[in-house]
């Protein structure tokens, strides 16, 4: 029970060495009234077979991306994951290790994180990246707090076309940090950049934005320069295979969600936030950073570095309170990128682009209309035909084996009736045509 190896005899020997008669005696420092007088009210233990059967039964109550054809994105995507990713990250040497505080015992994970930092910096076109964050939402919030510190301003301008949940997390952090969040309006599927005026700590845009459309990062950069603020870009790592990277536009911070790189959708967690910035901001950056150095014998070695920013050393003066990161998922993303290579990643991105366009073509043929005409990547906002309403359409599609798109009206009053549909490289021609046919039949 509890994976406890002790035999009765060993317990007796250990108690004798300690000098007490029973395990109960060891709890003498806990005052009697605070000790539980009854067992925890929890279900009785299950053996392994019963446990796995119980969990499989619960799991079978779920619609998944395997039971249904998934046209839902909105921050979590059904991307192809090569089998080798899970095989490698399941190795116990990685899976059961801790934060690499002792570099001699942890060279493997340290090097893997160094490689992850390199891959993220390359993809985003930035100078440096950290060892990962909890998810895109918290990475963005931390980027905004960093911008406030660097710029000495407490006002953030965030595009309304940044993921609604990311903006919600930002507001939650801002509320307790005394930061004001101003939303930048949108029109025709793109953010309306502020035209100078009030100074801001940062301008935050997402690209592709929440509506799937490609934003004009040059305009965002001009707006950030005009307001004396940092430019924070929430980027998609797969789209970055095709798009000119934010670093080329002069972005100060690039954050994003790495789930699409080899990580399970997992009902939204754990996720993989990434955070890249300019070299001169390294000491202001939250999270862990691994650096290369040499050891006593002159060999290349890796170690956590810039540790004096961190909570366990600086305590209340730390740049952030982060201790845990997402190292195992950073490893998954690195393996994923390594086995795809530049050509494979471009092909994934091109297949998303193609499939999303094929999906729009099929849907418009059955009467759907695009909400905006801007170029899009993997997701697109459409108005479905008929008067069913998006929520009801999704409900009926579920019965036909489709996981329908995101109901934009649930987050944007101004987009009521719009449906954000997504097609990744995992969608097939049959699924795309099947979706269009089902929409046609359900809305007839």
């Amino acid at each position, binding site marked *: 029970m509890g994976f406890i190896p002790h035999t009765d005899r060993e317990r007796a020997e250990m108690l004798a060495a300690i000098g007490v008669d029973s395990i109960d005696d060891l709890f003498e420092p806990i005052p009697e009234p605070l000790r539980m007088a009854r067992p925890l009210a929890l279900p009785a233990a299950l053996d392994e077979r019963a446990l796995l059967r119980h969990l499989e039964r619960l799991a079978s109550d779920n619609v*998944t991306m395997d039971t249904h054809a998934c046209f839902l994105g909105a921050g979590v995507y059904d991307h*192809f994951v090569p089998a080798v990713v899970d095989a490698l990250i*399941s190795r116990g040497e990685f899976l059961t290790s801790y934060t690499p505080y002792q570099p*001699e015992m942890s060279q493997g994970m340290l090097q893997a994180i160094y490689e992850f930092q390199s891959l993220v910096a390359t993809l985003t076109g930035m100078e440096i990246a950290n060892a990962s964050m909890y998810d895109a939402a*918290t990475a963005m919030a931390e980027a905004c707090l960093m911008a406030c510190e660097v710029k000495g301003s407490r006002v953030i301008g965030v595009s309304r076309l940044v993921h609604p949940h990311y903006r919600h997390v930002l507001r939650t952090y801002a509320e307790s940090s005394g930061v004001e969040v101003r939303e930048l309006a949108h029109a025709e599927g793109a953010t309306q950049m502020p035209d100078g005026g009030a100074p801001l700590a940062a301008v935050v845009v997402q690209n592709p934005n929440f509506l799937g459309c490609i934003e004009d990062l040059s305009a965002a950069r001009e707006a950030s320069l005009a307001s004396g603020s940092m430019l924070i870009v929430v980027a998609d790592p797969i789209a970055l295979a095709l798009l000119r990277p934010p670093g080329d536009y002069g972005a100060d911070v690039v954050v994003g969600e790495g789930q699409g790189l080899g990580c399970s*959708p997992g009902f939204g967690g754990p996720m993989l936030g990434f955070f890249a910035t300019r070299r001169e901001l390294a000491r202001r950056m939250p999270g862990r950073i691994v650096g290369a150095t040499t050891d006593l014998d002159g060999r290349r070695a890796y170690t956590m570095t810039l540790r004096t920013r961190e909570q366990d050393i600086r305590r209340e003066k730390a740049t952030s309170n982060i201790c845990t990161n997402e190292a195992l998922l950073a490893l998954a993303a690195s393996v994923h990128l390594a086995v795809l290579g530049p050509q494979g990643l471009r092909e994934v991105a091109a297949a998303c*682009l193609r499939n999303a366009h094929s999906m729009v073509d099929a849907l418009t043929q059955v009467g759907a209309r695009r909400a905006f005409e801007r170029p899009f990547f993997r997701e697109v906002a459409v108005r479905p035909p008929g008067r069913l309403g998006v929520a009801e359409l999704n409900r009926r599609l579920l019965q036909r084996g489709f996981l329908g798109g995101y109901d934009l009206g649930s987050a944007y009053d101004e987009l009521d009736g719009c449906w954000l549909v997504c097609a990744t490289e995992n969608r097939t021609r049959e699924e795309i045509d099947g979706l269009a046919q089902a929409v046609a039949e359900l809305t007839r």
Partner: protein
Amino acid sequence: MSDSSAPQATGHRSEPVLIEKSVRGRRGVRPPSPQGPLGPLEEMLPGVELRTDLPLPELSELDVVRHYTALSRRNYGIDAGFYPLGSCTMKYNPRANECAARSPGWARLHPLTPPAAVQGALQLMYELNCFLAEVAGMAAATIQPAAGAHGETLSLMMVRAYHRSRGDMERTSVLIPDSAHGTNPASAALCGFQVRPITSDADGLSDTRHLRELVGADTAAVMLTNPNTLGLFESRIAEICAVVHDAGGLVYCDGANMNALLGVARPGEMGFDVMHFNLHKTFGTPHGGGGPGCGAIAVGSVLEPFLPVPVVVRRGNALYDLCHDRPLSVGRVHSFYGAFLNAVRGYAYIRSLGPDGLREVARHAVLNANYVRARIGGAYEIPHNRLCMHEVVASASRLKRRFGVRAMDVSKRLMDHGFHPPTNYFPLIVSEALMIEPTETESKQTIDAFCDALIAIAAEAETDPEVVRGAPYSTPVRRPDETAAVKRLDVRWGSSGQ
């Protein structure tokens, strides 16, 4: 699996970084083909600036497998051997729970699926919240925080919202013992609070007299770890909570050390108002080289209205749902619902152990720690040498004073004996600290071997101190130059540092 004759991080051959192994034109895995004629990308992205170069490594699948297998051999995990890092609870990570979490019925779930179509997932979260609330002795729980420090952040946001909801705007300070984890003051600062340290008394417990001096109308909360970071139970905890409550403040429990208390004592009954769990410590989910974790929190009824949205609820018709209509909620702290797959692992852990099994976890964690204390007490000073809970803090200060051998040297020498070192130099109030947490899943034989090594190193410090100071000798690298790492700041390939 790695070679069984090489249980430690013994991959001595250095491994080039990925980009150095890249061969132009080499391909690995081929992704699915596009469903339609591709044509020039510019036609689908009119007017969009495209990328001209993408200098990622080009490797075959086998190249990648060999690379990461080589790296894994240069890394040490619980599967390789004893990992007694204090405050980290490096217990065995059950493989059945891994197997469960990888089921497509969990791993392939989209978080925005209509609730009616993910009843199994919502039921699991609902039940886990109930389990955690029961273990804590509190009213409710949420798995939304991604890590312990994230749970602290969320808790302090809720504390702030609670005071403000009562029109009490002047509570600007948070009191934290000087023995606390660094995340506590960092989280308090992140939430805009002034941090005021509480000193520890001669017994290694929070000084209640100092606490009474500090507590007042400006106290938002006190953050306490119980058992504290010396591995000692804060026996005056009920009194402390009463003092804080009388002054209108709330009390937060850093639950990093819950492994000592499972089924034995409950923070809610001690007077705590809110606490975090580390599912990756107490409930055996893997640490993964630093994450992902799960920093679920439990709250008493005064804080329940402030929980982050969405809250998993059970409706009258026995359907589980996500409730967003919570007017007092602090908001949201994660993109979705938190580290759900770790919740599956934690749920599996609790279901496989049951109430009696969880209690045995705490009892054996405490047995093992006290056994370490008894075994090494002759060779090392133990500043508070009395019954401890799940961990024991020893000190190398005698070795330092007499032979110039520091805690760091002892730790490095332990590597040559095949063990991961304990936590060093923490808590800050013990000089030359060696903080040892054996956990319940280690056998007497393993602990004996570890204690024998520690005792041998103490003897070696006397006879051959320079040998200990020069350790380790058997690891892939030896004492990387951290000062040079900061100076060079070579944090990626292709940077000026290389």
